[in-house]
């Protein structure tokens, strides 16, 4: 077997250079709102207990809330948006910003789909009702805790 030619990595680097550069932002606020409530025709700012939030409505009828929050992944912040329907059930979670070089698997729609239908009284514990992604444990755990906190806040504020 011949030795490996170090020049081999040059085409690899070129292939990378040709790839489009993409920042850490995956979704703007507007895109996240639209992804969570595609049928809404208005998003009015409606902070819930100090948390950035918007009331999504269609023809004046409230559909639910979009809450935006940040949690630490391993050591960098993850910005995400939670969509909660007027019935108090989670519609979906959207990752808006992810800055770490590892653990980006939390953007996998199948992982995020686990939150669908969760309510403030759901356990929302990693490895219990939310399955983990190996190698992205801290991001998974902190996002799960974030959603739990937002749902508690949502429930408490709407009870007032």
């Amino acid at each position, binding site marked *: *077997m011949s030795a490996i030619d170090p020049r*081999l990595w040059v085409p690899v680097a070129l292939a990378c250079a040709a790839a489009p550069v993409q920042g850490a932002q995956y979704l703007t606020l507007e895109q996240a709102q639209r992804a969570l409530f595609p049928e809404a025709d208005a998003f009015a700012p409606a902070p819930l207990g100090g948390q950035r939030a918007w009331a999504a409505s269609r023809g004046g009828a409230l559909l639910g809330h979009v809450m935006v929050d940040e949690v630490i992944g391993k050591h960098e912040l993850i910005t995400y948006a939670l969509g909660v329907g007027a019935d108090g059930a989670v519609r979906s979670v959207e990752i808006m910003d992810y800055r770490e070089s590892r653990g980006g698997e939390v953007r996998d729609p199948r*992982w995020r789909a686990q939150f669908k239908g969760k309510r403030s009284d759901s356990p929302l514990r990693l490895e219990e009702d939310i399955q983990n992604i190996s190698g992205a444990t801290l991001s998974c755990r902190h996002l799960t805790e974030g959603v739990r906190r937002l749902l508690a806040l949502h429930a408490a504020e709407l009870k007032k």
Partner: protein
Amino acid sequence: MEARESFVKKHVKLLAMAFALSPLTVAAQSTIEQKIDALQQEVERLKQESRLRKEQAAPAAGADAGSATSIFGYGEFNYNRYRDSERTSKADLRRFVIGFGHRFSDELSFQSELEIEHAIASAADRGEVAMEQAYLNYRFSDAANVKGGLFLIPLGILNETHEPPTYYGVERNEVETRIIPTTWRELGFGLHGLVGQGFKYDAGITTGFNSGKLDDPSTGIRSGHQEGQLADAKDLSVYGALNYQAPGLLVGGGLFTGNTGQNGQANPLLKGVAARLTLWDVHAKYSIAGFDLQALYAAGTLGDADKVNAVTSTAATPFAAPKSLKGWYGQAAYHVYRRGDLDVAPFVRLERFEIRQQEDAALGLFQDPKNLERVQTIGVNFKVHPQVVLKTDIQHYKVDSTRNRFNIGLGYMF
């Protein structure tokens, strides 16, 4: 902005008062009040919107306000008590690892881990200070990242994810210690990313092993690793790994191959000897209904093992290079108690590893049976916090029973 808003509000109120004082009918008054209410609401809404807009202009204010530099770490304190009176039982600050990361921009970041093993490193002590990783990563997109520097080779489950709360048992499993030499890092370049739904690839060119340094067949090819320390790099290696992940599931494998003769740089007698090393593995991890199941198979071959042995043999290590190595393990854990942060999970692991040596009857060199071993481990991981674990287990070695031991460990990561 605030001042202007309160100015508007004040004038709206003054205006309202002026109207209120004028001799109007009650009906008209109530209409005006409604209008004032509407105006006040409008002002409140505008105020809120402008505040939120300011917040959104800097959505990462929290991250940037702190620092683009972060510190993290992990560590473990282990106690090994051997049944055999000939073996010494020991307590050890096995690892203390501190990591630094820095984000230069959204695309470019730096990661590093500095490890201190066995608490003290000095000429008179057994400890060591080592870089576990230090590399730069540039993200073109999720699907394409380039890394360069000293990084972990993506073989097995443990090598890249080796923080004590992430695995069962006080000691790392034998297969991912003796067959895959965890924590295994090389200097080089790699291309990695997430593609499709759940696929993760990582491939690159790195430094490789140096068979001229092999001196301990019981740990496979570990003694030939170079760890980024003035690595002989005449012979480079390539690696590739592909993993598939879904919530609760991981299936994947990796391959690493390259020559290790290094043009005789470590031992002139190895000049012209290729001594090609190939290591590969397949692994799976699945969590369901409170169970954590995990299995791994790893194997490898070293070409020219006879030549390597012929030139590296000494009286102490007549048999330095293994010819082939393989091992597997299966592990099952069950979460018997979970409440809040507390998590108690007993586990059992069965392992087998075979490090085949190059026998030479003429020189009286025969396979050491201790390198064909079967190990049973039974224990419990007790997490007081998701990132802090207390572990204990009993290990039984089928061939070399002097290794039978009882372990207690305390580990953390942040």
